């Protein structure tokens, strides 16, 4: 009886305590959180929230657009700048920044971006914004294992969650086709991958870039420091380079013997060197790469990095090396060791005949008498879904698999036909890669303008690449413009064409 009565008497006091704490949490979140998470004290002054609004496009109807929005994180750098991942900044229309996890939003400006590095720097003109903020310390070294914390603003609260570093690896980045150094972390945290800060103590060891199942990838501090320093040293930023050649592991002793290697198994076999990256004699198929930049290469294609341990040799293309740099190689060629160099080509989406991405530009298209032409690109193929290799028309998606065999700088596809009396009879023609128009080869969309001018006898003659479907069609050249305008009016399309700017790289965006 006594016990019960004692408990009863205590309950109102406990409830009161909970109520007061709750009230305090609502009214003074910063103060209370700073007190609760002592190890994070100060980090709230170095992490900001970014809200990005951007345009997205439907490549099946490239003249349409919609807006999309995402909230992600940024870290404060010295010099009143904010570092974040480049992800989702493509085609942005508005950047808003918030400090302290709540309160006013301030408009930011994109100052620098590199999609292959997946890094962006943002600044803003309102000098008052920086009051109370302080630059984060980027760790000089990136740990390759052990505990770490993810820090982000969430619902007005600076959230800190434990995660565990799995390893450092070199693999394809989220926005690029090249292999870059990445920090892999084991985590169950939901919604992570949007540039959240990964810290150990008070130091930044990475910013997250993606999450797949239970593994989160982050750009490691070493990579961040390297790119930020290079950005300061060389303007414009030279960009990341990469090894464009194809190599194969050499675990097979018979292959090494065939290549006349003496001694311990080592090296990797060069299979293919794209012609545009093959200076005479620099690197040849069936070369055995033994050493890159002074590092011995094992049969798996790995080297021993003094900072990170065993990594893929692909990392040596971005380890303090930039597009245009010469990388030193030692190869075994017809049984003799040869010292040579390889000039790193710049990672550039447009260098590919079927580009992986087309950022910061409206989708290109051209409508001619209801025939819709578009450049063949991965974003176009992705309009069939992320599983486009299965779902897109095979002959189009397969171009992404054998790019090296394509003999054109880019491809133009007749993507669809907007039915009109002008194009009667061709309603089913689509997904055809163009070869020529009126005798002019069509390598890019703008070639169609010249092709159109070359009409003969009042007719347009279009030829498609040799294949298993329609090879040719003809149209009345005297009626094309009238039909185009009729189609635009009928289908509610503002412009008959959109072409990309001539420049392919973007160092300082102008908006």
């Amino acid at each position: 009886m006594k016990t019960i009565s004692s408990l009863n008497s205590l309950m109102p006091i406990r409830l009161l305590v909970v109520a007061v704490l709750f009230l305090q949490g609502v009214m003074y979140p910063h103060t209370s959180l700073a007190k609760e998470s002592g190890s994070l004290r100060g980090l709230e002054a170095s992490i900001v929230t970014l809200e990005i609004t951007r345009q997205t496009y439907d490549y099946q109807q490239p003249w349409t657009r919609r807006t999309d929005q995402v909230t992600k994180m940024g870290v404060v750098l010295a010099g009143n700048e904010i570092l974040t991942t480049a992800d989702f900044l493509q085609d942005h229309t508005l950047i808003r920044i918030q400090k302290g996890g709540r309160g006013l939003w301030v408009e930011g400006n994109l100052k620098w971006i590199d999609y292959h590095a997946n890094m962006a720097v943002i600044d803003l003109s309102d000098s008052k914004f920086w009051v109370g903020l302080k630059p984060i310390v980027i760790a000089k070294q990136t740990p390759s294992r052990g505990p770490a914390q993810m820090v982000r603003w969430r619902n007005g609260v600076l959230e800190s969650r434990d995660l565990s570093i799995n390893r450092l690896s070199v693999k394809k980045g989220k926005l690029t086709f090249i292999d870059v150094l990445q920090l892999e972390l084991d985590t169950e945290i939901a919604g992570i991958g949007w540039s959240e800060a990964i810290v150990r103590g008070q130091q930044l060891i990475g910013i997250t870039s993606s999450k797949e199942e239970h593994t989160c990838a982050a750009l490691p501090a070493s990579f961040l420091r390297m790119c930020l320093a290079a950005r300061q040293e060389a303007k414009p930023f030279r960009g990341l380079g990469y090894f464009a050649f194809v190599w194969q592991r050499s675990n097979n002793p018979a292959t090494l013997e065939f290549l006349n290697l003496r001694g311990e198994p080592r090296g990797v076999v060069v299979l293919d060197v794209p012609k545009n990256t093959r200076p005479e004699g620099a690197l040849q198929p069936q070369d055995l790469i033994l050493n890159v930049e002074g590092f011995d290469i094992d049969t798996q294609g790995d080297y021993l990095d003094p900072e990170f341990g065993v990594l893929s040799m692909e990392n040596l293309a971005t380890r303090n090396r930039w597009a245009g740099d010469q990388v030193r190689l030692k190869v075994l060629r017809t049984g003799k060791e040869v010292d040579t160099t390889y000039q790193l080509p710049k990672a550039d989406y447009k260098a590919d005949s079927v580009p992986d991405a087309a950022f910061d530009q409206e989708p290109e298209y051209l409508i001619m008498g209801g025939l819709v032409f578009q450049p063949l690109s991965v974003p176009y193929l992705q309009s069939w879904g992320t599983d486009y290799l299965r779902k897109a028309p095979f002959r189009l998606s397969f171009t992404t698999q054998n790019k090296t065999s394509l003999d054109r700088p880019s491809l133009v596809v007749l993507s669809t036909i907007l039915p009109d009396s002008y194009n009667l009879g061709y309603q089913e023609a689509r997904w055809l890669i163009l070869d020529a128009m009126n005798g002019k080869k069509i390598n890019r969309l703008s070639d169609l303008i010249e092709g159109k001018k070359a009409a003969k006898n009042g007719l347009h003659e279009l030829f498609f690449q040799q294949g298993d479907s329609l090879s040719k069609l003809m149209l009345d050249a005297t009626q094309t413009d009238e039909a185009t305008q009729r189609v635009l009016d009928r289908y509610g399309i503002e412009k008959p064409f959109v072409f990309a700017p001539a420049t392919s790289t973007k160092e300082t965006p102008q908006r």
Partner: protein
Amino acid sequence: MLSLPAGAASPEKSVIQITTASQQPSWDAPWRFDSVRRSSGTGFLISGRRIITNAHVVSWAKQILVRRYQDPRPYSAKVKFIAHDCDLAILEVEDDRFFQGMESLEIGDLPPVRSTVVTYGYPAGGEQISYTRGVVSRIELQSYSHIGNRAYLAAQTDAAINPGNSGGPVIQDDKVVGVAFQGIPGLENTGFFIPTTLVKHLLKDVEDGVYDGFPQVGVRLVPLQNPAFRQALKLPDDDLGARVDHIFDFPKTKELLRRDDVLLKAGGYAVASDGTILYAGNRVFVGVVFNDFQKGETVPLSLWREGKTITVNLPLDIYQGDRTEGNQYDVLPRYFVFGGLVFTPLNRDFMRTLAGGWTDTPNNELFYELFYRKHESPLTIRKEPVVLASILAHGVNANLETRGRTLIDRVNGIKIEQMEDLVRAFNQGTNSAQHVLEFYPDRNLECLDRVATEAANPSILKTYGISKDRRL
């Protein structure tokens, strides 16, 4: 022997139940056979003591047993002719007793759409003969799934056609108007039968004792409905004529036809601008016309060329160039095993062994090679692309990077155009201590120690139960 019931209606007396025991090879382990499969179908007797059924009922059959209507006794039958392209077969039974009291069915013509037909057969779900009544819903060109890469005239009916009905007669006015053969998964009340035009073609074809098949013209014909294109070709606006868009590698066709010729008439049928003709009251693709012709016969074509109508008599031939793109039957797959590496020709049957979709990334190089290369790069095609189908694990191949399902380009410097090249390349003596294998299109390089591999070959064959290292 039991006599047939006197009161039975005549068609069912001629309908035959067929049971088979069949066994297919395994295309990714081509020395091996899958387990024996028992299945049943239907057939019917026609003149000359011939039994008509579907090719797919008796393909790969090790044993064929036939039973008469309400007679429990099985008789042994064998395939006299088989036409995989149109999914028909002719069986024969040696035992005279089988035919006692049986009457052959008469073969009729193409039934009109909306007319009533009755299918006879022995479908799953019971032992007795089954009858289902329906109407002919439509008649047009359909893909024949047994071969996989051919389309012929087919009639659609709402009469139930189920597994076991295959090969059974579709009857109208006591005459056979078709042979039940396939359905489309997911479609209800939809079955297809082979019209008698194809059955008659088969019967005429085999009169010389050899089945040749259906000839083709070898052109890609496309609609010609755009006014500008028609004007450019100076064609009248009469909605007639389809354009020759491409000519395939058919010698006579290449000689007599040209690209942009407009086909106005074929075998007496007027060709509409969408490439169709009116065939027995049905609007169907003009290709149906050529299916009425036999190998070596000549089809008269009326063509529009350079503003004038001309007549061309085109000799027709059988095209075998796309054989590997279709399913193949009754011919065991070719293979060669060397150092545990299993090589086999690339064909549709091998593609069917691949996990996942044919166009999945791991398989799409093979898919392209089989179905697209000849269209896009005809000068680069090989007579018989050879694929490294699998690797039988052994010490001599333990460290290969390649995991199989890859096309072989060269062995010891010899370009592999067909299986025989492969054997020759491995057998030829060189100074090299390795066999050097190059794959395509990725140029992967693999080597096998020459002495160790050749020494290991017998034990690899023994370990994996392969009696012969090759079937060529």
